[in-house]
């Protein structure tokens, strides 16, 4: 192991040599530069290994004296870890900056000094020495920033000097006072003699020191200068500031943490977390990429600062504990991701966010970009995800729920602007400005690769390695690598993989999980047959499908809430990406993501609350008796968002309707059931004594039935075929929620029967819609008409499915209605039953409108030559029809297994008498009904057929029309605004109040962000004033 003191010898010496001998060194200069950097990277590694193996923390005393006389350095596990990653970043950053440094000798020199300063800040245990190293980094950084000499750089650098100058003064005065009080400059001794830091002098000293640290950490509001630096300086430098100097300064703050009194400590926590929230809020208004990254960087450091103050101050921790993994993980996640983003920004010529759309031409860079964004947003499989999870758990354990709430808000805001940016890149016009250099790409790729590796390590450390959790991602990546396989082959492969996985999964599952596995695997594989129809490679589509479906399997096999949440988030992100592929405007996909992430955060909060109470993430128990209401609300709320319940449904129509036509059936029929699975799990795992009796179920039931009603009502006013089906899905899932809320055997049986039936008919409807839209090229129903002659098979499929939807006997829909009403009446939910009935009659309206506008009425001239929908769409439809017919004729083959599974949880109230299903109120024999209906239908039909001879089909317009002869199908086909009277009578119910509400929320967020960011005037004097104000504020808040 090399003594760390050599770092402070070799780096300056090298810098000195490079400066003085540069005329003679020529090419050797680069060699020396990298050798020295490599050395600095190597130095802490043996220490890290040694310390991880249990070695003791080393102290280095300079000049042979002990403190307080000497300056001492310390290299413990934290120091070694941080130095390793900062110096690694140093090398990667240097590599990236090579181009920038070309032609100047000062760049590399300053860079070396800067790196040395960072290492010094990390290792020193002397307060004054810390000040010195901070000055060294400041000065070298200032010089690095202004190296290119543009006026923008100079002013930004000057503002930096002003701010860091004031900070230095504060720091120095604080240090002097502390020295006066404690008689030492050594931080450890100072902490040990903390009792001496009392009185006005002590408080003032601490406040000044703290203020200086806060300025250096760029916390809100004293960070205007930092934003200007991020915006103005070269992205390579910005990367090293965001990653390196921020991390080192964070570590300095961490070292001083034990010095603060509890009140100061909570001020730090408050400032840190407020910085996180507010910076992310203001990020919403940014249009320049670098400035946005600046906001995000500051926010991330704020989070680190806040968390360290919250988690570490109260309980001193040593060694490799979870808290350390959180902070370390967060730091490294931020450091690598942010540096990577800054590095990419250096490649792109434009400043604006949309100018990044050029990335679309470089799929691998785009992939990296997406990975970095996901890492920062805390999504799996990146380190940020493990951090997010554990932050929630730890904060909940420390009962810091308010702070947890703020952090979640900040996370959500961050995700909003990052993914809006991603959407913008994917959907805005392609730009051309990019300069790709190998030297720039190498650090970017290395960094991302490292992040995967670190994520694996964190997974291993925090939850134990689990291959199943990685499998979906691995398979998807593998398929992604096989780029040149044609889409059809990939579709086949996808179906095969899914069925193969199902084959292995099924024996592991039992009961309820098995039923959901049938929903998730064979049925989605069936829907994927439709994908065979599309030509081309469709890169990404099948990979994401595999990712989604296999992760659905992982949801079912989850034993802990972490595993569940991991798969849940993977599904959310993959679904977002697949929606984004298909939509024309990115905001549809963004809306989906924002609501889904908000839901996921609620679920996370629920799990963390449960963890706080039970101390376990095992998915067998959720909460204890006094916490169940909160957990119930959080979890149910989160899952309700996924089901598109009324109030949080506004993401649903766009996501279902605007996505690719062959994905719509999957998202609306299959993926909507994940929310149902979640709700069912919550009700099951909350414990019967609570979940069966809580009044909250009544509220859940009302939400369900209102969703059913309003979904149907929205659907009848749609002119767009897919929007109508989307709203219909919303309504149908509302019934399932209602049935689940009943918490009775009959209710849950009804819920799952409804779920299966919904998959069957909604699958057919969306597949049929896909076939029609492909042939016609329009989604507007009034532009269609009379297609029964051109697409008889599609017509028959739609006919069967709307009968199954509307609940008209003898098809399967009646079974679902019968079960539902019996369950509702059994539970004495009478008014809900009435509203559900109303909703189901309203469903007739859109069912008829659907089939009439498309297939009946007058045929349009331009669609005379249209052919039947593609066979690939028809095959799954007819399989589904066969399934509907089967369960209509023999309802017991589906109801019996469901009822049996549910009887494991709640005693059964259903009984069978032959084929007759008996509830406490009524009875129903699907089999006989089918036969009777067939009979009463066939007799008149045969009679009529015998009556008629030599039938002739009349031509179009051959109708009795009051002596007029219509000749235009457009004016004769009644389809547009089909229910004007309903609009007049009940239209007030579909006023988009919810959309308006969320639009207002968004508007307010942006307005507040806009107002807030006005404090960043760009004026150095204002920034100085901010610092003064902050000092005063801390003084007041500290209450001295």
């Amino acid at each position: 192991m090399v003594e760390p003191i050599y770092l402070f010898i070799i780096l300056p010496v090298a810098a000195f040599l490079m400066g003085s001998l540069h005329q003679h060194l020529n090419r050797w200069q680069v060699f020396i530069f990298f050798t020295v950097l490599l050395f600095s990277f190597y130095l802490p590694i043996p220490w890290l290994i040694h310390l991880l193996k249990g070695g003791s923390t080393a102290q280095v005393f300079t000049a042979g004296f002990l403190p307080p006389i000497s300056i001492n350095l310390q290299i413990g596990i934290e120091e070694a870890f941080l130095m390793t990653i900062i110096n690694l970043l140093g090398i990667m950053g240097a590599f990236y900056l090579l181009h920038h440094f070309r032609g100047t000798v000062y760049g590399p020199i300053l860079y070396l000094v800067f790196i040395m300063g960072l290492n010094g800040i990390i290792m020193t245990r002397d307060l004054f020495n810390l000040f010195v190293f901070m000055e060294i980094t400041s000065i070298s950084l200032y010089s690095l920033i202004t190296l290119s000499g543009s006026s923008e750089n100079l002013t930004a650098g000057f503002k930096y000097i002003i701010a860091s100058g004031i900070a230095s003064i504060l720091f120095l005065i604080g240090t002097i006072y502390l020295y006066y009080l404690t008689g030492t400059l050594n931080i450890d001794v100072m902490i040990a003699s903390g009792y001496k830091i009392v009185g006005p002098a002590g408080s003032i000293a601490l406040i000044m020191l703290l203020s200086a640290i806060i300025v250096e950490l760029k916390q809100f509001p004293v960070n205007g200068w930092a934003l200007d630096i991020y915006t103005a300086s070269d992205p390579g430098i910005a990367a090293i500031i965001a990653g390196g100097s921020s991390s080192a300064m964070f570590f300095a703050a961490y070292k001083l943490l034990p010095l603060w009194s509890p009140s100061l400590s909570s001020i730090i926590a408050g400032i840190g977390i407020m910085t996180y929230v507010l910076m992310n809020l203001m990020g919403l208004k940014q249009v320049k990429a670098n400035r946005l990254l600046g906001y995000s960087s500051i926010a991330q450091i704020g989070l680190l600062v806040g968390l360290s103050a919250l988690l570490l101050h109260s309980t001193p921790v040593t060694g490799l504990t979870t808290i350390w993994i959180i902070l370390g993980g967060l730091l490294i996640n931020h450091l690598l991701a942010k540096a990577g983003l800054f590095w990419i920004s250096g490649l792109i010529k434009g400043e604006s966010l949309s100018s990044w759309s050029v990335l679309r031409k470089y799929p691998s860079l785009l992939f990296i970009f997406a990975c970095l964004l996901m890492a920062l947003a805390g999504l799996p499989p990146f380190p940020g995800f493990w951090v997010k999870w554990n932050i929630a758990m730890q904060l909940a354990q420390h009962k810091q729920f308010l702070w947890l709430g703020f952090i979640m808000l900040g996370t959500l805001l961050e995700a909003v602007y990052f993914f809006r940016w991603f959407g913008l890149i994917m959907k805005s016009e392609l730009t051309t400005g990019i300069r790709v250099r190998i030297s720039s790409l190498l650090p970017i790729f290395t960094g991302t690769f490292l992040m995967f590796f670190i994520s694996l390590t964190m997974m291993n450390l925090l939850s134990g390695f689990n291959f199943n959790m990685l499998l979906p991602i691995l398979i998807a990546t593998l398929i992604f690598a096989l780029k040149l396989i044609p889409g059809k082959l990939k579709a086949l492969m996808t179906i095969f993989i899914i069925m193969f996985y199902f084959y292995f999964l099924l024996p592991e599952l039992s009961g309820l999980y098995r039923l959901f596995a049938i929903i998730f695997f064979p049925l989605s594989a069936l829907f994927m047959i439709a994908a065979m129809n599309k030509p081309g490679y469709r890169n990404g589509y099948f990979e994401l499908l595999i990712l989604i479906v296999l992760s659905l399997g992982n949801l079912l096999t989850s034993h802990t809430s972490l595993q569940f949440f991991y798969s849940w988030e993977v599904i959310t992100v993959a679904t977002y990406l697949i929606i984004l592929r298909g939509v024309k405007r990115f905001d549809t996909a963004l809306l989906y993501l924002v609501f889904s992430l908000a839901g996921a955060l609620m679920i996370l909060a629920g799990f963390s609350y449960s963890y706080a109470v039970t101390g376990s993430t095992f998915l067998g128990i959720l909460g204890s008796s006094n916490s169940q209401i909160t957990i119930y609300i959080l979890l149910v709320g989160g899952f309700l968002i996924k089901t598109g319940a009324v109030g949080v449904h506004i993401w649903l129509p766009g996501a279902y309707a605007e996505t690719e036509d062959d994905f719509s059936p999957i998202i609306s029929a299959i993926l909507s059931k994940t929310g149902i699975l979640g709700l069912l799990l919550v009700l099951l795992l909350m414990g019967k004594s609570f979940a069966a009796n809580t009044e909250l179920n009544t509220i859940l039931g009302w939400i369900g039935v209102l969703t059913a009603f309003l979904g149907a009502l929205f659907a009848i006013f749609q002119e767009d075929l897919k929007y109508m089906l989307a709203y219909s899905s919303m309504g149908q899932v509302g019934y399932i929620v209602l049935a689940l809320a009943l918490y009775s055997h009959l209710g849950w049986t009804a819920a799952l029967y409804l779920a299966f039936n919904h998959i069957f008919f909604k699958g057919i409807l969306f597949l049929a819609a896909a076939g029609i839209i492909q042939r016609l090229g329009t989604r507007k129903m009034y532009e269609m008409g009379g297609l029964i002659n051109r697409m008889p098979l599609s017509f028959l499929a739609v006919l069967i499915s709307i009968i199954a939807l509307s609940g008209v006997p003898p098809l399967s829909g009646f079974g679902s209605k019968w079960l539902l009403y019996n369950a509702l009446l059994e539970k004495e939910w009478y008014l809900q039953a009435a509203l559900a009935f109303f909703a189901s009659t309203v469903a007739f309206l859109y069912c008829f409108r659907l089939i009439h506008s498309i297939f009946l009425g007058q045929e349009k001239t331009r669609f005379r030559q249209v052919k039947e929908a593609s066979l690939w769409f028809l095959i799954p439809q007819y399989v589904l029809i066969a399934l509907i017919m089967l369960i209509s004729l023999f309802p017991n083959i589906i109801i019996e297994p469901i009822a049996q599974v549910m009887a494991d949880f709640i005693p059964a109230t259903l009984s069978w008498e032959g084929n007759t299903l008996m509830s406490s109120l009524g009875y129903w024999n699907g089999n006989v009904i089918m036969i009777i209906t067939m009979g009463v239908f066939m007799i008149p039909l045969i009679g009529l057929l015998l009556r008629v001879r030599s039938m002739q089909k009349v031509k179009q317009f051959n109708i009795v029309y009051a002596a007029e002869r219509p000749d235009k199908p457009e004016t004769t086909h009644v389809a547009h605004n089909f229910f004007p009277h309903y609009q007049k009578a009940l239209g007030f119910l579909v006023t988009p109040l919810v959309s308006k509400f969320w639009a207002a929320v968004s508007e307010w967020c942006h307005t507040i962000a806009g107002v807030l960011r006005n404090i960043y005037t760009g004026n150095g004097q204002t920034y100085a004033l901010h610092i003064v104000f902050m000092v005063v504020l801390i003084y007041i808040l500290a209450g001295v």
Partner: protein
Amino acid sequence: MLQETVTIIAYAFISLLVITIYGLTLNGLVMKIVARVHGRFGPPLWQPFIDIIKNNAKRTMIYHGTMFFLGPVFRIAGGIGTYLFIPAIHGSEVFANFSFSGDLLLVMYFFFFGQLGMALGAGESGHPYSAIAVSRGLAQMTAFEVPFALSVISLAIQYQTLSITGIVSAQQGGILHWTVFTNPLATVAALIALLGMNMHSPFDIVLAPQEIPIGPPTEFHSAYLGLLQTNRAIFNLAKLVLFMNLYFGGATNILILIIKTFSIYMLSVIVGVSFPRFRTEQSIRFFLGIPTILGILAVIFQKL
């Protein structure tokens, strides 16, 4: 087993035949009554029979497409089916029909079977009035089903069963056991809904003579119209028998059935000759107003 099945089917045929003849006579009678109220002489009592025979005797040579052809078949299948799922006469084996296959919910949903099929047939005719009328009819249907559903729920609470036979037996033993006396609110709500179902004025917005002559059946002629007219008698009776069973104690023999159903029908007739037609949205608002409130009250009072 086989003999049993054959017996049941044979009984169903007898029951259906009786009800068809009665239904057609009832329609003739009502036409006569309405005409007299209008001050006309009116057609003979047996006019519906003549109409059906005439229509069936005509040539049926043209059609607009498969669904158009099947529309009337759906319609009459819906009418017959609805009737056959209701036990018509309490305690009678012949008139028990196929009520063993499902309860009240089945009947309520089977109402829609014929409507949906007919709407599809009318839709394929391509006649704009047909589509407009279907749109009106469906819209009004959703509205009047609300008070009816509430009323049925109230009955389910009252009798703790959804079996029609069960509800009828619970009302036996005297006139005061009838639902109309034990649960007047539910009965009133349901009877108002029945006005909508029977589509006499002011709720005749579907056929709407002089406005969209004559709505869905516009394009249907000869044999198709014959089927529709036959259905009108059967379906009408099915509804009346259902209401008789639910609210007026059912019937123990055919005479009581005739008296009760005739009386219930007179309500629609009297209202029909007294009021002019609603617009569709007025009709929707009407049913979702007072009748729905009455229905909700009926549910609440039963629950208390």
